[in-house]
């Protein structure tokens, strides 16, 4: 281990570099490493689709071990959708295989003259022609590579036609149903003419203190298997959230116009389980086993068998488009996987188009003769195809909803985004901490970098344990701004460590099993670095990562103005349901959050904060650019 693979596609050169020790000690792994590398190697204002962008495939110190949720890996680059920090995590087996091949990270730069794919077989690394693969979907690409190299155990991360055509929210797919979905990492890969990375590793991974590590791993294994909500996840997966969010009136419906969806029952986890369930699947070594394969036996989509959808797909391709046909959602979700599209952004751009159509801003003619009315699932599925192929209106939507509105000069006020990223399936009006999370998230309207669940799922004991009993009941009140900055910051710090180790979101936020103390114990046992075992030190590393990612965005010109929410969340009260009348009061939470982070009122890290975290060079760079 301790090796980094550096691939220059322009020069067609592959280099093995040593992982710098300072990087490991100060940034832990995954997201931490990427933050330092992207800040150091990218120029502010550069074109995310230009050859100089870096595409990093990252793993962490727990990847490949028996820690029960360590099957994750991640991709990082400047995002072509948001023009800021891009990061996307994925499950499956690719990260594990990369680690077993002997690499902590692969950094890709440059652009190949002709399509290529990277083949990593332990020490033997080659760039191979991808002429036959170009134009193929992600499942075909995976199968063809395994066939051509004669080994079905090869793990593949690849792009589909959407990434090739630089759809700005193209994803990178792995293992047929696992996606590094958000922020357009597939478009960056496409811009480099890199069709796939195929990897096979025969090496072993070891930890520093095996006995201690195995004690912790076995205990963690038991804790997951004993957690009742984790067991529910195994049975139903993330669609569990549909019924819950329906009950609290926060199931985003018709481009977030409301949180009440009439057809929710048809999309609930128990309905799906009873009518469509085919199989449970799992990422590498995971005890949660949340993935589901579903099968449609009747109706227009009969015969379809596919992995997914997750809750977010049911939201974006379903409720947010007013669609209650599960077969259509599974079909669209499968198309997203095959073409390589982020299912969240894909559904959300369609929802935006539907709202524009509803309001008469766009005509049938503008939409290539289609009628994008709420609930029209045939049109939704057709639009997904058109986006992936960049045909007609699909070519406009392929730019993301923010750019699409700009290009058409219409519907800007109905673009549900933060920092140009389409919003994930939460609503800050009825879940105040998520209002702040969406607003400040480093990659835009995203829940996964700091989603707090204690105020929505009623985890009072967890809240008391993590933040102190004196913070109750307000900390668990979804309609109160009180303490939300504190808990969002704590979640963001914890998740910076989670994303550097790299372990799964499920088992930290939801269900609430592991948190910083667990990460400290396992990080020190795995690496032998004692300071990782000290909570204070681990928080310092977390803050270093959060500040460095923020500095990356500040350098791109962002500040408080961009930590905003769609007007719908701050000015249109929730129209019905249990949360009727609620709006998000962002400013109060934002002020508190900046103060806790040691940032200026304008949302820029101060020199003092950066100096304290050992980021003086970052402060100097921001000063040089007049951003400090």
């Amino acid at each position, binding site marked *: 281990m301790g090796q980094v693979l550096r691939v220059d596609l322009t020069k067609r050169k592959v280099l093995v570099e040593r992982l710098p020790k300072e990087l490991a000690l100060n940034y832990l792994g995954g997201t931490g490493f990427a933050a330092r590398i992207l800040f150091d190697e990218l120029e502010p204002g550069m074109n995310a689709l230009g050859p100089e962008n870096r595409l990093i495939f990252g793993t962490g110190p727990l990847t*490949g*071990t*028996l820690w*029960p949720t360590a*099957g994750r890996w991640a991709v990082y680059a400047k995002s072509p959708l948001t023009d800021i920090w891009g990061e996307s995590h994925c499950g499956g*087996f690719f990260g*594990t*295989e990369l680690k*077993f091949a002997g690499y902590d990270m692969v950094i890709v730069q440059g652009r190949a003259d002709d399509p290529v794919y990277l083949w990593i077989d332990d020490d033997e690394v080659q760039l191979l022609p991808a002429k036959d693969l170009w134009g193929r979907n992600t*499942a075909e690409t995976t199968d063809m590579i395994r066939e051509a190299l004669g080994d079905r*155990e090869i793990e593949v991360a690849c792009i589909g036609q959407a990434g090739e055509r630089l759809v700005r929210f193209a994803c990178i797919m792995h293992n*047929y149903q696992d996606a590094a979905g958000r922020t357009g990492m597939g478009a960056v890969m496409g811009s480099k003419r890199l069709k796939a990375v195929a990897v096979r*590793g*025969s*090496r*072993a*991974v*070891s*930890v520093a203190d*095996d006995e201690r590590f*195995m004690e912790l791993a076995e205990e963690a*294994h038991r804790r*997951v*298997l004993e957690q009742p909500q984790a067991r529910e996840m*195994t049975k139903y997966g993330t669609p569990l959230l549909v019924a819950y969010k329906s009950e609290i009136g926060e199931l985003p419906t018709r481009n977030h116009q409301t949180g009440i969806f009439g057809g929710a029952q048809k999309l609930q986890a128990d309905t799906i389980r009873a009518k469509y369930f*085919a*199989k*449970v*699947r*799992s*990422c*590498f*070594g*995971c*005890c949660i*086993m949340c*993935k589901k*394969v579903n099968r449609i036996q009747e109706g227009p989509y009969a015969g379809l*068998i*596919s*992995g997914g959808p997750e809750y977010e797909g049911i939201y974006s391709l379903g409720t947010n488009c007013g669609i209650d046909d599960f077969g259509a959602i599974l079909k669209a979700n499968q198309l997203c996987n095959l073409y390589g599209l982020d299912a969240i952004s894909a559904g959300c751009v369609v929802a935006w188009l539907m709202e524009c159509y509803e309001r008469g801003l766009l005509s049938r003619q503008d939409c290539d003769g289609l009628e994008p009315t709420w609930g029209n699932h045939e049109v939704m599925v057709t639009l997904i195809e058109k986006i992936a192929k960049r045909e007609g209106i699909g070519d406009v939507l392929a730019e993301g909803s923010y750019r699409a509105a700009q290009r058409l000069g219409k519907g800007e006020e109905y673009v549900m985004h933060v920092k140009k990223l389409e919003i994930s399936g939460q609503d800050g009006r009825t879940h105040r901490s998520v209002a702040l999370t969406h607003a400040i998230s480093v990659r835009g309207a995203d829940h996964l970098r700091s989603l707090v669940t204690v105020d929505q799922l009623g985890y009072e004991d967890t809240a008391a344990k993590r933040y102190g009993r004196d913070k109750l009941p307000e900390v668990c009140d979804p309609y109160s701004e009180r303490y939300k900055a504190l808990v969002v910051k704590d979640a963001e710090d914890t998740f910076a460590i989670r994303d550097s180790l790299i372990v799964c979101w499920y088992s930290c936020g939801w269900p609430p099993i592991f948190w910083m103390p667990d990460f400290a114990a396992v990080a020190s046992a795995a690496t032998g670095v004692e300071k990782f075992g000290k909570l204070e030190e681990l928080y310092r590393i977390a803050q270093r990562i959060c500040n460095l990612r923020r500095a990356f965005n500040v350098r791109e010109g962002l500040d408080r103005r961009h930590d905003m929410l769609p007007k719908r969340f701050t000015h249109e009260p929730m129209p019905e349901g249990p949360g009727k009348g609620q709006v998000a009061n962002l400013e109060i939470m934002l002020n508190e959050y900046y103060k806790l982070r040691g940032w200026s009122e304008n949302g820029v890290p101060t020199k003092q904060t950066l100096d304290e975290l050992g980021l003086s060079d970052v402060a100097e760079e921001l000063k040089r650019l007049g951003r400090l």
Partner: protein
Amino acid sequence: MARIVYAGDGCTGCKRCIVACAHAHDGTFSLEAGRIWVVKEEPLTDHPVVCVQCVKPRCQEACPVGAIRRVDDLVLVDEGACIGCGACAEACPFGAIALHPSKGVAIKCDLCGGDPACVKFCPAGVLKLKEPAAVVQQKGARG
């Protein structure tokens, strides 16, 4: 004597058994050094493959140096005697024997001395340690 049994339903394909097996034998994590593995097919197949401890082991017959023997109903490889030719792996009708990625010698399930790591770490709880006779009975009863 018991052996490792998969009743044919419930494997999620996570491969935790493989890594737990490698760790139990080598003290390190690996997908190549496990003595159990998982066949995965799209869209619905995940199936663990492991030695069934044959009564008349083909691997034993194939071994040119007599490194494989049946001891107390368990088929064992004498790693010291093994020359790493792979004849046993070719002979096994189940694909349940392999060559160790760094040592080169034949590796197969030895039941971890009676407390198999794969059974212990299988999150779905579908790998069991059972007597073949009990399996026959169970399957028969189901049919």
